[in-house]
């Protein structure tokens, strides 16, 4: 499949994860989110931006616990838990938020 913004095409795999990580931009994130029936709010961006920062450093999305801890530390304790992240990304923070952040899907027994 592919996403299209103003005539520009972004290739994605069968599940909607973009294939060229470098081509990601915020407009694309909004579009992917729309596809996932998510309206991006400031809270969503906090998570997406953290994922991208972590990926830049480690070439992988953070573990769920790393994510919850970092979000809790950065944006307040009430946000540092799984339930909060699932309320933002109902399909799972690891997979759905990664898709919106333009990162590859985490694989394995997860």
């Amino acid at each position, binding site marked *: 499949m592919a996403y299209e913004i103003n005539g520009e095409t972004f290739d994605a795999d069968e*599940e909607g994860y973009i294939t060229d990580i470098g081509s990601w931009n915020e407009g694309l994130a909004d579009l992917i989110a729309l596809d996932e029936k998510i309206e991006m709010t400031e809270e969503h961006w906090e998570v997406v931006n953290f994922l991208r920062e972590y990926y830049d450093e480690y070439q992988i999305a953070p573990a*769920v616990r790393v994510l919850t801890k970092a979000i809790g530390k950065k944006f307040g304790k009430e946000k540092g838990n799984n339930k909060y992240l699932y309320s933002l990304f109902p399909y799972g923070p690891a997979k759905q938020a990664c898709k919106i952040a333009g990162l590859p899907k985490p*694989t*394995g027994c*997860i």
Partner: protein
Amino acid sequence: MADFDTPELKDFLETPALCPGSMEHSKPFVAAPVHQEALGFPGELVENWQEKAIDRMGELLDTNRALRVYLDSCVKCGACTDKCHYFLGTGDPKNMPVARQDLFRKVYRRNFTTAGKYVPWLVGAEDLTEETLDDWYSYFHQCSQCRRCSVYCPYGIDTAEISMAARDIMDHIGIGQKYSNEIIGKLHKIGNNLGLPEPALANTLEGLEEDIEEETGIAVKLPLDVQGAEILLVTPSADFFAEPHVDGLIGYAKVFHAAGASWTISSYASEAANFAMFIGSQEQMREVAQRIWQAARDLGVKRIILGECGHAWRVAYSFWDTLVGPFDFLDPAYPMPMHICEYTDDLINREKLRLNKAANDEMTLTFHDSCNVARATSMGGRPGGQFEIPRAVIKAVCNNFHDMADDTIHEATFCCGGGGGLLTDDLTELRVKGAKPRMQALNAVVEDHGVTHMAAICAICKSQFSKVMPYYGLEMDAIVSLHQLVSNAIVLEGSIQEEELDGTGEDDEAGESLEAEDEVAAIDG
């Protein structure tokens, strides 16, 4: 939630009405050329695929005597028909184990038996057509290789072996499954299924050390790549990443700490899982297992302990020695391999761990026997040890435990619905429906015995349950790691938990004086 109906749970498990073809649309994504070629398979369907497939089938029959016996010995007695969770959850007759086998058997008969060659119409022999190949791809990816059917088969026919063979043949003609093959490629490249590179692993482990210290006040370590450590822990990479897996990993670390063990995780072999078993590839299975042998030797460890991973335990227990052995550099005084449950159980029996069962009092537990552990391995060097030891550990750390119905546990256990390389989002419908028999049994103890949580010792089971339980009205965190329970109960020396139980510990009779205070409080109250 989804474009299919979640099966309804009733008072007892019914044999469903037949719904022919109801699951023929279920097919996982096909591996891309890049995933195929990384494992040495053709990138896409080869031109002479029929010929190649039959050639490969012949090779498998020559090297795997069991496969030929399974194909020859079925008498169509029907004992297996209602034993598969995917049949029970979907009603599709091709999910009856015998029908699944027959998709393969008819091609075998046509090409490798005299009757099938000359009078195919008499013996149900058929050529491998495009339609059959399509059925293969669909229905051999609706078998989680759990082997429950083989328990009830009077001949012990193992559908898992047939489904592995079918997947291997499909890989060899260029149509592999994306989920498994992409993951195996990642393991070859990075060392684990997740693709978690060493710096990220180190960072994750450091974070967990901080968490444990915050919780207990004790600097419990999760050592990485420690040369000369005594124990190498090999655990599924999901233990580093997912919930509730990570709580199990914390449990192992606390147990090692309490035992004063010298242990390490390896960044080179940071994966216990061996997905090559799912695709039936001996060559890949050997390559994946080789990393662990190599890491153990390079680090100079004396023993290897496996974390909570079902099929990893099967591969280690049943295949390691012949695949990549000998492990003659390890200390023969210890079992090889050893399961983390055996390790913890031994410490409990020798009273080396202080356990506060009350820490788990808010839960009432049941235990899900993971299929590969239950039906393909043992523990403790005795028959049935694989059932007894995990339960013994749970009972040592929890006050409230109830088993599910007898015909759904031990060797009769129902698969979680996500094993055998099917734990992928493109098979969500199958996974939800296939979980029905287990959900039914769980629901019964929830209603009758107030069970609140189910413990498991397999990364796939844990992820599968946390995903499918909400479809059946259960909370996603109702699934827990067995060592998560140990982690909750264990009282480390000098920890905050010890202080809470014993008082400040300033005098040696702290425990007694606390009891005395309790009595006073009780009288006052």
